[in-house]
């Protein structure tokens, strides 16, 4: 019925995806084994992992919003905001990832709080933008007007960073808590929700793309399972080894990079390919978007480690 012969671009896609997956696998395999350490160290290690997760998200938001707002000609001065906050969040996260101290950092804290707020304000802007468009809250506007879900990603980055700082705030040698709740549980639950939100955004945009490639179902099937497993971990018994959850989260982290490779291949197969990059990089599938799944999966892994290191029941 349909003409679906593979083209050179599809071959490139597979090569890129395989490459990304192999590289990611090697990176995972080369990681230092989780040597059991004292509690203070594990808490800081988890905090640093959260910084890393927040940084991954921030990097994704930075590039994605740069491209999308460039598309919008930065016609509103406020459109520069996510670039600034995502850059700051990225810098704070790099700093935090390298920081082995067991206490929160006031600048990082401020930056993360600012990022969280920016996301909320951005969502407001985007809702306002849609409300001015003919058709208001319609599929058409959800597809093509300012994306409602996108600003939330910077909030998630801020939230993860903020949680990281709270984690560091804990006194050494006690099970870490945030707002009185065991840290692993609250981080796991929030990350699980964040994953579901990102699934919603990706589901909407892949619906706009009519799921023309079966691989487009992956980001709406794998991360929800990861979110469910992580949610179950956060709410369930803590004194349990959860290899399936861990590996599923790792796979989800890889999915983020594979998505980037898929999207790059998509840009390549658009009319004019990479030679027409000024159009296709903006109009084609967003290359920087998928790693937001990686960021969240990394946060999930950090939460899982906290749950395992600090059983609270």
């Amino acid at each position, binding site marked *: 019925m349909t003409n679906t012969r593979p083209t050179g671009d599809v071959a490139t896609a597979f090569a890129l995806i395989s490459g990304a997956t192999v590289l990611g696998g090697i990176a995972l395999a080369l990681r230092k084994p989780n040597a059991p350490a004292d509690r203070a160290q594990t808490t800081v290690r988890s905090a640093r992992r959260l910084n890393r997760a927040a940084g991954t998200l921030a990097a994704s938001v930075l590039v994605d919003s740069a491209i999308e707002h460039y*598309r919008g000609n930065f016609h509103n001065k406020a459109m520069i905001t996510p670039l600034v906050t995502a850059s700051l969040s990225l810098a704070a996260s790099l700093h935090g990832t390298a920081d082995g101290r067991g206490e929160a950092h006031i600048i990082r804290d401020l930056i993360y709080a600012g990022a969280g707020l920016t996301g909320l304000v951005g969502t407001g802007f985007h809702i306002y933008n849609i409300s001015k468009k003919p058709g208001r809250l319609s599929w058409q506007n959800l597809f093509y007007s300012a994306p409602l879900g996108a600003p939330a990603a910077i909030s998630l980055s801020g939230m993860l960073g903020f949680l990281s700082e709270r984690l560091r705030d804990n006194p050494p040698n006690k099970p870490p808590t945030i707002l009185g709740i065991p840290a692993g549980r609250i981080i796991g639950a929030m990350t699980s929700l964040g994953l579901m939100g990102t699934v919603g955004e990706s589901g909407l945009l892949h619906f706009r793309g009519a799921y023309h490639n079966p691989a487009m179902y992956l980001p709406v099937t794998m991360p929800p399972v990861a979110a469910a497993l992580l949610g179950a971990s956060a709410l369930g018994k803590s004194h349990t080894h959860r290899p399936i959850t861990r590996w599923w989260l790792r796979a989800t982290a890889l999915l983020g990079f594979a998505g980037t490779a898929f999207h790059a291949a998509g840009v390549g197969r658009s009319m004019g390919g990479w*030679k027409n990059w*000024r159009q296709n990089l903006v109009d084609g599938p967003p290359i920087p978007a998928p790693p937001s799944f990686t960021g969240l999966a990394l946060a999930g892994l950090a939460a899982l480690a906290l749950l395992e290191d600090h059983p609270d029941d």
Partner: protein
Amino acid sequence: MTDRFPGYDVLAKRRTPSWNEPTRQVVNRRLAVPREPRFLTSDLFVVLDAVCQRIVPQPKDRPPVPLAALVDTKLFTNLQDGFRYAEMPDQGEAWRRGLAALDEAANTHYQLGFAKLGGEQQDDVLRRMESGELAGGALGDMPAKLFFEHRVVLDIVTFYYANPTAWSEMGYGGPASPRGYVRIGLDRRDPWEAAEAYEGDDAKARRENGFVG
């Protein structure tokens, strides 16, 4: 006439992804059209050239479009429209008769050939044709009004607006393949589109148009 798109030249995009090879060839051929008549006699060609200057007076600061040569080439290559009004002869014959009739009317009213008249006088003769006042003589049974609307205006105007000079002056993006457009909403412009000069910001538009490519 003020330049609304100062510094914009659609030809600056010729080597960008906005132009594919067939487009480059087509536009090259059009710009290189032989300037000598191949279909009309040189007498009628002179009249045609004068008519073209009245139908589309061209900008002074952009490359002139050889309209008479393009119309003559259309007749020479017999590029057809796909239809012919029952009361009209074929296009070549129509143009021969029509141009002769303009010359005839110029002689009747001003005792000079059409090409030798001043602009106002030429417009007056053209208006007499447009209103259908001219009849018989060189026109034969061809209705003057239909010839003016359907051949004179349409053929000449069509070729003017199929040229980079016209595209540039009207701020039209021009050829677009493989690169099309990204920003398609209201008040949005891709960096490879013409920037319009609004009150007092001529320099800004000129600067932005310098980057079009």
